[in-house]
C-alpha cells in the first residue's frame, strides 16, 4: 500500500515536471540538403539556410527586415577618403571548440577568401579589399582599392562569416563558428542536428533539419507532424490545405529571388531589342503566376526585389500584349521563330516553362522545352552560354550587379550600365544609392535584357504555436536565434 502511494506520487511528480518544461526542440523541413557546411566554400543556398547566424557569424548580419546589423563587430566607421574602414570587434567571444575570437581570425578569414586558391563562391564581394590590418585584437582596418559603400552589407553575406584557422579546413563536415548553436550530427540524406551552446541566449535547445524535397513527401511529413514546419515550403499547390488546417500557420513572404526568362542577348535574332521586347509582351505574368505558382508570387518588370525600398514597378513596360508582340516580331523580320528553353529541375522552372511555351506559341514563336539537371545547366547555359532561353530564379540578395559583368551568361554588354553599377558600389549615401538603383532598373527594362517574370514567394508553413520564424527572406537563411514555442 505504502509502496503504491510512493509510486503514484513519484509518477505524479514526473508528470508535473514534464508539463512544466516547455518544449524546446524543433524539427524543420528543408527542401535541399547542403553538399557540405562551409558557407565560405560553396554557393549552395542550403548551406546558409542551416549555418547562417546559427552556427557561423560575420562581422555584420542581415536582420529579418533586410537591414544590416552589427554581429561580431559592435560598430564601424569609414575614413574621410572612404578608402579605410575600421571595425570594432565584440570581446570575449569564443568559437565552439574553445579557441578565442579576435582580429587575427578576421584577417585570416578575409585573406583566405581572397587567396589565389580560394574556393569562395562570392570572391567578388571581397575584391575591393586591398589589405586587412589588425592594430589590436579588438580592431580591424580594411584598406580598399576604391570607395565601397556597400562594404558592411558585403560582409553580412554567409560567404563572409568569420572562421578560425584551427578549424577552417574541417568546417565542411564539422563546422566550428561563434554562433549560439553548435553542430551535433549530420546523417547525410536524412537530417542534421544543431544544439544550443552552453550559455547561449536562445530559446531552442535543439534544432533538427530534415531534408525532404519531394512535395508530396513534404506535405505528408507536415500533415503527420513529423516536422514542425518549413521556412519555405517547396510546393505552393499544397498551401491551401495547410491554410484550412488550424494546426498550421501559413505565412507568405518575400524572397530575393527574381525569376527570369533569361535571354541570350548575343544570339541572333535575340540580339534585336524588338525581338526581346516581343517575348516580354507575349508573356501573361498573372496567368503564369496563377498556373505555375498557384497565385503566389509578385510580378516584376526588372531585376529587383519588390521588398527593397529602391524598387520601381516597371511591369507596365512589358505588359501582356500579343498583338504588339506579333507586330514587333514582324518589324524585326523574325516572323517564324524557333527557340529552345532550357529548364533546370525546380518545379517553378519546369511549370513556368510549359506555360511560357504555350504563351509564346500564341505570338508565333515555337519554343522547344529541354529539361536539364543543374550540372548540365551550369555547364551549358551558365558557363558556355549555349542557350536561347532559360528559366531560372536569381536568389542572391541585391544582385542587379550581375548585368554589369562582361562574361555573364546573359551576354548583355552595356558600358553605361557598368558605369552606373560602379557608381552604386562606391556610393555610401543610401538615398542617393537608391536613386541610382532606380535608374539601373529602368535601363534593364528598357533594354528588355530578359523577360522578367515574378519574385519567388517565401511560402512559410509551420506549427501555429511556433513563434519568431522569419516571414520574409531578405537573405537565404533560417535564423533560429529568435524562435520559440508559445506557452
Amino acid at each position, binding site marked *: 500500500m505504502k509502496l503504491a502511494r510512493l509510486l503514484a506520487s513519484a509518477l505524479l511528480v514526473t508528470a508535473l515536471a514534464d508539463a512544466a518544461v516547455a518544449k524546446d526542440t524543433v524539427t524543420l523541413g528543408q527542401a535541399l540538403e547542403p553538399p557540405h557546411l562551409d558557407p565560405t566554400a560553396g554557393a549552395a543556398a542550403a548551406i546558409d539556410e542551416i549555418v547562417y547566424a546559427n552556427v557561423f557569424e560575420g562581422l555584420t548580419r542581415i536582420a529579418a527586415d533586410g537591414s544590416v546589423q552589427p554581429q561580431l563587430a559592435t560598430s564601424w566607421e569609414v575614413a574621410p577618403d572612404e578608402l579605410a574602414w575600421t571595425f570594432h570587434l565584440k570581446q570575449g567571444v569564443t568559437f565552439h571548440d574553445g579557441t578565442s575570437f579576435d582580429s587575427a581570425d578576421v584577417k585570416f578569414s578575409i585573406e583566405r577568401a581572397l587567396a589565389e586558391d580560394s574556393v569562395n563562391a562570392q570572391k567578388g564581394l571581397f575584391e575591393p579589399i586591398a589589405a586587412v590590418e589588425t592594430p589590436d585584437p579588438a580592431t580591424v582596418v580594411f584598406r580598399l582599392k576604391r570607395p565601397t559603400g556597400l562594404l558592411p552589407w558585403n560582409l553580412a553575406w554567409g560567404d563572409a562569416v568569420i572562421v578560425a584557422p584551427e578549424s577552417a579546413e574541417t568546417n565542411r563536415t564539422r563546422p566550428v563558428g561563434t554562433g549560439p548553436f553548435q553542430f551535433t550530427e549530420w546523417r547525410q*540524406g*536524412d537530417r542534421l542536428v544543431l544544439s544550443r551552446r552552453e550559455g547561449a541566449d536562445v530559446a531552442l535547445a535543439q534544432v533538427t533539419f530534415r531534408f*525532404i*524535397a519531394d512535395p508530396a513527401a513534404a506535405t*505528408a511529413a507536415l*500533415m503527420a507532424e*513529423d516536422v514542425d514546419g518549413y521556412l519555405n515550403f517547396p510546393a505552393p499547390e499544397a498551401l491551401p490545405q495547410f491554410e484550412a488546417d488550424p494546426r498550421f500557420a501559413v505565412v507568405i513572404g518575400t524572397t530575393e529571388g527574381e525569376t527570369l526568362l533569361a535571354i541570350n542577348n548575343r544570339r541572333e535574332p535575340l540580339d534585336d531589342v524588338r525581338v526581346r521586347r516581343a517575348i516580354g509582351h507575349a508573356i501573361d505574368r498573372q496567368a503564369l503566376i496563377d498556373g505555375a505558382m498557384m497565385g503566389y508570387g509578385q510580378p516584376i518588370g526588372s531585376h529587383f526585389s519588390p521588398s527593397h525600398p529602391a524598387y520601381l514597378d516597371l511591369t507596365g513596360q512589358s505588359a501582356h500584349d500579343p498583338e504588339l508582340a506579333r507586330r514587333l516580331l514582324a518589324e524585326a523580320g523574325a516572323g517564324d521563330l524557333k527557340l529552345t528553353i532550357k529548364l533546370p529541375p525546380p518545379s517553378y522552372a519546369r511549370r513556368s516553362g510549359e506555360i511560357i511555351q504555350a504563351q509564346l506559341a500564341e505570338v508565333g514563336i515555337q519554343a522547344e522545352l529541354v529539361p536539364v539537371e*543543374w550540372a548540365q545547366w551550369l555547364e551549358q547555359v551558365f558557363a558556355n552560354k549555349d542557350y536561347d532561353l532559360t528559366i531560372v530564379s536569381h536568389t542572391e540578395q541585391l544582385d542587379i550587379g550581375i548585368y554589369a559583368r562582361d562574361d555573364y551568361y546573359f551576354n548583355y554588354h552595356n558600358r553605361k550600365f557598368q558605369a552606373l553599377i560602379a557608381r552604386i558600389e562606391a556610393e555610401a549615401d543610401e538615398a542617393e544609392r537608391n536613386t541610382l538603383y532606380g535608374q539601373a532598373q529602368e535601363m534593364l527594362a528598357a533594354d528588355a535584357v530578359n523577360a522578367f517574370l515574378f519574385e519567388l514567394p517565401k511560402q512559410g508553413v509551420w506549427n501555429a504555436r511556433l513563434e519568431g520564424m522569419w516571414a520574409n527572406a531578405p537573405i537565404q537563411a533560417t535564423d533560429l536565434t529568435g524562435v520559440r514555442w508559445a506557452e
Partner: protein
Amino acid sequence: MRSLLRIAAALLTIVLASVLVFLALNVLPGDPAAVMLGTEARPDTLAALRRQMGLDQPLPLRWWQWLTGLARGELGTSHTYGVPVAELVAARAVVSLPLALLALLIAVGLGIPAGLFAATRHRRTGDLATMAVALVGLSVPAFWIGILLVLLFAIGLRWLPAGGFPGWGAGIAPGIAALILPAIALGLPQAAVLARVTRTAIVEIMRLDFVRTARSFGLTRTEALRRHALPNALPPIVTVLGLQFSFLLAGAVIVENVFYLPGLGRLVVQSVGGRDLPTLACLVMLLVTAVVAVNLAVDLLLLRLDPRLRHRG
C-alpha cells in the same frame, strides 16, 4: 565443375561491368566542380577547385587510379559530401538492406502461402479470388501503393511515420516502424508474382504421375503437397525470386523517393544530379555486383535443389 564455371562467369561479368560503368560515367556531361560552386563562381575559383578534386588529370590516369583504388578497397571521396564513399554507402546500406529484406519477407510470407492456398483450391472460388487479387497487385505501380499507404496509415490514422528514417541509434522499433510502409509497397507486387508462380508450379506437379500414384496409395492431399509438391516446386520459385531481386532494387530507387528514406536508391539519384562520380561509380558497381551475386546464388542453389541440372549441358 559446373559451379566453378558459374562463379568464374559471374566474376567476368562484374569485371566487364566495371569497364562499362567507368566509361559511361566519364562521358556524363556536367562539371562536378561547377555544381559545387554554383552561379557566382569565378573561373580562377573553379580551376582551383578542379585541381583540388583531381579533375584536371587525364581520363586514362583517373581510370587507372579508380581501378587500383577499387582493388585496394579505397573507394575514393564523395565530391558532394567530402566524406569517404565507403562511409556514405555504408550509412545508406543499413537502410536499404533491411528494407529489401523486409520487402522480401513480405513477398515470401504472403506470396507463397497465397499460392499454396490457391493451388489447393484449384479452379474454385478461393483460387479465383486469390489470383484476381494477385493480378491486381501485379498491375498497380509500387509507388502508387506507397502513396495510398501514406494517405491511410500516416496522414489518416497516424499509426506510422510518413517517411524518413530515425536511424538505428534511435532503437530497433522506430527503425522498423519507418520501414514497414515502404517494405509493404515494395513487397506487395513481388508477393503477387510469387503467388502466381507458386500456384502454377504446385498445380503442375500435383498432376504429375508420381504424385497421383502416391495419392492413390493413400497419401492425403496435404501430405502429398508437403512431401512431393513443395520440394519439387521450389526450383521455379527460387528462380523467380532471383529474377525479382533486380526489380526489387529498381523499385527501391522509386519507393525510397516516395518515403524520402536515406537509402542507396536515393543516393543514386542524388549523385547523378550532383555529378558525384566517385559515389555513383561505387553505387552502380555495388548494385550490379549484388544482382550478379544473387543470380549466382540462385544458380548454385538450383544445382543443389535439382540434381538433374548438374548433368545437363
